[in-house]
């Protein structure tokens, strides 16, 4: 556990020294989401209908934006090798890195979502459900994305390949995440949607670090 925290703190410290990378993804999220109301025009009913989907798709893309850099720098300067050779478990160090990625790329999206949701006329309970779905969904995106980032590490044109690999895997999260807000709007219970999201998160939290570790060990051979 201590290993995980050391690795997490290290990535947060590094991110603190190069803030622009973190802010780019956030700014991207805000701009993409804001373009839709401007492009579609002031039709409250339509905006309220598409709002959750737009926010979720923008969150997927913003997460994707930071993924190629998740392991690239550590791979290029040899830190990843040293981590793999460390006497501490590699899988926990990587879990720490993914946790840092979520804290920097995922959590801010959750916190920004209600503000941006207002542009789509989402209110009250809808915003709460949106935040909840993103709170469960964004760590899922980071965990799945980490496997993709590890598999495409060191591959030429890895960024595009990463999108092709990871975006289809994001679909279930998108369906149940955006679906939960729509269910709330239709007056249905959102527990089903959120439970499925939570189950996917639990599965990913268990398997993703191992899959990421295995992919990185192959990438370093």
């Amino acid at each position, binding site marked *: 556990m201590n290993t995980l925290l050391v690795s997490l703190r290290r990535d947060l410290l590094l991110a603190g020294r190069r803030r622009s990378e973190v802010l780019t993804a956030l700014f991207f999220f805000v701009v993409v989401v804001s373009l839709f109301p401007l492009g579609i025009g002031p039709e409250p009913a339509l905006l309220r209908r598409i709002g959750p989907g737009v926010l979720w798709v923008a969150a997927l893309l913003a997460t994707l934006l930071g993924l190629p850099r998740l392991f690239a720098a550590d791979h290029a300067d040899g830190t990843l090798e040293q981590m793999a050779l460390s*006497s501490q478990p590699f899988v926990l160090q990587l879990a720490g890195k993914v946790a840092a990625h979520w804290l920097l790329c995922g959590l801010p999206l959750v916190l920004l979502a209600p503000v941006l949701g207002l542009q789509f006329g989402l209110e009250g309970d809808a915003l709460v459900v949106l935040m909840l779905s993103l709170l469960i969904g964004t760590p899922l995106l980071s965990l799945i994305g980490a496997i993709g980032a590890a598999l495409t590490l060191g591959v030429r044109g890895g960024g595009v390949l990463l999108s092709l690999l990871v975006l289809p895997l994001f679909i279930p999260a998108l369906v149940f995440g955006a679906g939960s807000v729509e269910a709330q709007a239709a007056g249905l219970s959102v527990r089903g949607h959120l439970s499925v999201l939570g189950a996917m998160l639990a599965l990913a939290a268990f398997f993703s670090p191992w899959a990421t570790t295995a992919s990185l060990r192959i990438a370093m051979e």
Partner: protein
Amino acid sequence: MFTATDLACSRGERRLFEGLNFSLEPGEWLHVKGENGAGKTTLLRTLIGLSPADEGEVRWRGADTREDTDDYRRAFVYLGHQSALKEELTPIENLRLTLALDGFAADDEHLLDALRRMGLRGRENLPARVLSAGQKRRVLLARLLLRPADLWVLDEPFNALDAAGIALLCTMIGGHLDVGGIAVVTSHQVIPLPRGQELAL
């Protein structure tokens, strides 16, 4: 005791070496020589388990290193071509984090002392990106002073070092051997240390 038996490695289709044997007792060191591309780095990466060997085995204190990885990883320190330094961080932060990820803690006193012994007095709090190549190499070598290890695996450690740096590193390796350590070093330099075996690839 560190031994390799019948080790064989390839890179892609090309066989780099085969039937490679050596055996090192405490206090002995191995000088790996060879032309560029002869497979020196591959040999070192195979010894520490980063790359798999085609054939043969590596044993540390009698145990197969592929099976007993935890003990083995605690026993060696590997310094590769790459600096593993973060440009944004200062030398002292870099060292502290590398040690912490490896499961070792060091207080600032020891970190500063190690950096000063490597001739980096006054550079402790500059970001690593403003350091010269030789100074970065010295930061990297400071790990050898801080991380207790019985086996040093050093890939071209003399690169970018000046004459004083080379002498300093030779003294460090000598001191390591004197207390019963083992070292495997690749280098094109002549290293004036006793009890050395040579391995030409």
